[in-house]
């Protein structure tokens, strides 16, 4: 499994280069960006296009069997921590069996309890979401604590505690909808494994108007294959070297 993880870059506030701790059974897609002190527990799935950067707020914890879908961004403010279930402090704590769906933004300090569902493009920032909550799409949860088992409808903006306290409980139809979204993700999972096998990926560029030209190979390819040193990288390396970094074996 080719996983692209990098140690957090040295920043003025933290010279500690921490590396993600990833359980063997977790699947971190190579087209994802996983940086810094992030604990990834067993059977976690981290999809392509995700950005999980514990380079400012730190550390992060992602619990067992949790699912982080495409395009999710997880980041944290330098200051501000939540207390995880292990009584330690985290910038972002995500419990077990949580589903964070496409394009969601989890910005620490943030705590997301076990079995939560965070819908497409929703934001959780400076908030605590109790166990078993279902947050639908395009919602904003900020500066509040949401009790366990609550439902947040699509488009809701929950930014004060009175609003959070008035939220309804999750019902069966909510759960069915959330389960359906998770199912779609399971189908795509098969695609990720395929992605590791270059024989399986073969996108075809086809000129639909001119059959004579036949099938052309696309220029677009899985990014795993295209890590070469170009001019930009060279000049960046020169910069780092002049700042005193060294390259050693």
């Amino acid at each position, binding site marked *: 499994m080719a996983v692209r993880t990098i140690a957090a870059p040295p920043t003025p506030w933290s010279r500690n280069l921490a590396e993600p701790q990833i359980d063997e059974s977790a699947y971190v897609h190579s*087209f994802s*960006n996983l940086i810094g002190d992030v604990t990834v527990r067993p059977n976690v799935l981290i999809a*392509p*296009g995700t*950005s999980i950067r514990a380079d400012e707020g730190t550390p992060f914890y992602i619990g067992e069997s949790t699912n982080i879908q*495409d*395009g999710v*961004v997880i980041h944290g403010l330098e200051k501000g921590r939540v207390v995880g279930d292990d009584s330690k402090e985290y910038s972002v704590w995500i419990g077990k069996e949580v589903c964070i769906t*496409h*394009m*969601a*933004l989890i910005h620490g300090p943030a705590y997301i309890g076990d079995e939560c569902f965070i*819908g*497409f*493009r929703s*934001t959780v920032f400076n908030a605590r979401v109790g166990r078993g909550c279902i947050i*639908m*799409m*395009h919602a*904003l949860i900020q500066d509040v604590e949401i009790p366990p088992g609550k*439902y947040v*409808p*699509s*488009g*809701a*903006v*929950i930014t004060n505690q009175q*609003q959070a306290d*008035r*939220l*309804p409980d999750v*019902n069966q*139809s*909510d759960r069915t*909808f959330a389960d359906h979204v998770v199912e*779609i993700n399971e*189908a*795509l999972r*098969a*695609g*990720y494994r*395929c*992605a590791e096998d270059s024989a399986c*990926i073969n*996108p*075809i*560029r*086809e*000129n*639909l*108007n001119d059959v004579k030209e036949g099938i*052309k190979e*696309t220029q*677009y*390819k*899985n*990014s795993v294959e*295209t890590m070469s040193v170009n001019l930009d990288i060279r000049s960046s390396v020169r910069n780092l070297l002049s700042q005193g970094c060294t390259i050693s074996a």
Partner: protein
Amino acid sequence: MHLPPVQPVSLSEIYVSGDVIIHDSAVVAPGTILQAAPNSRIIIGPGACIGMGVILNACQGAIEIETGAVLGSGVLMIGAGKIGKNACIGSLTTIYNRSVEPMVIISAGSLIGDSSRQINPVNGNGI
């Protein structure tokens, strides 16, 4: 708008997985993710324009972006559906298992195809 903004992409490639066909004359910006689950497909037609950071996840059917359609940055399209000729989908829009008719313009940050429960406002104060 309370949605997460257009996110920068750090890789200049696009990620393609599964049965994906991109017409020669279509334009696909960097950092996009085009994924078709098994038994599904994605077709990007002639002159279509797919903005930065778009995610298309085809599942249980096909996602088809017809001739000249434009998807703004950060658009998310899940499931199966067709974006009609010359339709124009504003940035950060989410489309869940729906199609869009040709020539339609959708404003940025829209949410289409969401059939989840909505809460009726009580005393005009909503939630």
